[in-house]
């Protein structure tokens, strides 16, 4: 899977580093002082690297737990995100990571214990429960067989009464969850776009059916999954495509055993949009009816209202209003 693994010298002897490297005996190991030396140089091409990404094992120093942008959340008053990993196994054309990072290499921060200390501290500082979103700069579960992220963090969150965890994913890697008792304070949220958009935009992502299979398994095991329609994408015939997607999802899932359903329109900061559309100049997604407002590229306001309004109305047929959370900020 990886031809090269870059390793920060400070984590070379970390047990998690050793374990991961043992899985890839053929990979060439390259030592570096800080992951930024490999990951951050300007003259890199995300699209070329995406075809053959390398793995970078590093330690995250500081800023491990950050507040989410205003408007991001699913009902909680205190919302934070943390990223044990940068970049994603999947290759979704709309993903903001392509514009945010120059490199498509996967950075995995192996110092999970430091994240736990920070999460614990933040959770205990307020009276209200704190939400911790893990799938902001990566897919929470896609690399689970290698990272062991969920297997490690679930027992930790089980002992955090004032903390909620959202794992956000498009993967079907749910074994770590099925292998243990469900947690009342953990939401496993799966993202979807209609089948037609999945085919053209979500490369390497498991099919809608396979993701639904994983969700059904989780529900049957007692977990409360979430559903995310974020970003909402516009194309000709989107109404029929989203209607069919909603029907399929809520035909298979028990709406009474869902934690939440959230949705948010396609939006990208101007700089990210510019970088991504340069990588994929032939992509119709970026040539469509977009407009810039306050440094953010999104669908023209009339279109965004139409698309969001349509999806909310349709979702009301399937799920109670209390479970619906329209997201008002960019991904």
């Amino acid at each position, binding site marked *: 899977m990886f*031809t*090269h693994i*870059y390793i920060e010298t400070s984590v070379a002897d970390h047990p998690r580093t050793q374990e991961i490297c043992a899985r890839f005996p053929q990979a*060439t190991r*390259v*030592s*570096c*002082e800080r992951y930024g*030396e*490999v990951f951050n*140089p300007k*003259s*890199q*091409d995300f*699209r*070329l*690297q995406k*075809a*053959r990404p*390398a793995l970078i094992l590093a330690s995250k120093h500081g800023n491990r737990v950050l507040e989410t942008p205003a408007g991001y959340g699913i009902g909680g008053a205190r919302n934070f995100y943390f990223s044990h990993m940068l970049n994603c196994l999947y290759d979704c054309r709309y993903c903001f990571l392509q514009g945010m990072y120059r*490199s498509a*290499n996967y950075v995995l921060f192996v110092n999970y214990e430091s994240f736990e200390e920070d999460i614990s501290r933040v959770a205990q500082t307020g009276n209200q429960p704190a939400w911790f979103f893990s799938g902001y700069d990566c897919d929470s579960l896609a690399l689970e067989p290698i990272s062991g992220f969920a297997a490690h963090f679930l027992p930790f969150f089980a002992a955090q009464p004032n903390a909620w965890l959202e794992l956000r994913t498009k993967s079907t890697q749910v074994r770590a969850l099925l292998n243990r008792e469900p947690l009342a304070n953990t939401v496993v949220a799966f993202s979807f776009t209609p089948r*037609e*958009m999945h*085919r*053209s*935009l979500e490369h390497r992502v498991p099919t809608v059916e396979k993701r639904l299979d994983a969700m059904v398994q989780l529900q049957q095991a007692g977990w409360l999954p979430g559903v995310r329609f974020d970003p909402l*994408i*516009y*194309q*000709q015939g989107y109404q029929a495509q989203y209607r069919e997607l909603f029907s399929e999802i809520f035909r298979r899932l028990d709406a009474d055993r869902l934690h939440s359903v959230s949705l948010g329109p396609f939006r990208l900061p101007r700089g990210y949009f510019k970088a991504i559309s*340069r*990588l*994929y*100049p*032939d*992509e*119709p*997604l*970026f*040539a*469509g*009816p977009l407009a810039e407002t306050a440094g953010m590229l999104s669908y023209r306001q009339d279109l965004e209202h139409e698309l969001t309004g349509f999806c909310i109305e349709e979702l009301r047929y399937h799920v109670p209003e209390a479970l619906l959370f329209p997201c008002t900020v960019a991904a």
Partner: protein
Amino acid sequence: MINIVMAFPGEARPLIDCLGLAGRDTRGPATLYRNETHRLVIAGAGKIRAAAATAWLQETGPDSRHAAWLNIGIAGHASRPVGSGVLAHRITDHGTGKSWYPPQAHGLTMATDNLITVDKPETGYPENALYDMEAAGFYPVACRTTTAELVQCYKVVSDNRDNPVAGVTPKSGAALIVDRLAEITKLLTALDKLRAAVSARRGSANNLAQFTNHCHFTVSQQHQLEKLLARWDALLPEQPPWCDELQAQQQASHVLHWLEQHLNSVPVRLG
């Protein structure tokens, strides 16, 4: 275009012959050989000369932003056998301690190793790494104009602890390169594929001349036109934009308005 930077004529000769390079040009600061697709410069020894030759190629090249760059030469290594071909996955300037990490996106199964650029030939091989005298001069300069995936350093091991550098001659250096020509050719092909992939993305906004010949566009309007034509290519790849309705627009502002209105009304079909 692939630009190749080498230190010595003896090492370069096998590649010059293999690639069919001609036109020995000595007018610049380094000797240059070329054909339609490759340029090879003989820079001389040392990182300063390598950097200068690379910068010179950039300034004089037809298309240095869309080019691939390869530094080829011989190098020492503590333990690798003489004759081994190795790509650098980390280049360190011994003088400054600065390191660079050429991304390995070429897809070839090739040995890679750390490469340390020194100012004088290394005879003690203190680290288990390649030792050369050019890469740290070449690499950062080449990366100034192109993406790092298109810039690589390939070294053939010429000496090690059992075979001291004192025994390396121009003739033996040339023979080592000859033995690795097949691998070098593979590398050139792989880099050219990556180069072509990047280059293809940058070649949008076709038909621009048709428009600018039709009426006067200011610089700012030309930028707008390029963006609109790129959108056109993405949304209507099968349909050329130049049509009767568009030809009827006599002013640049009208042309731009028509294009924008038309594109906004096109139904978006993804994939």
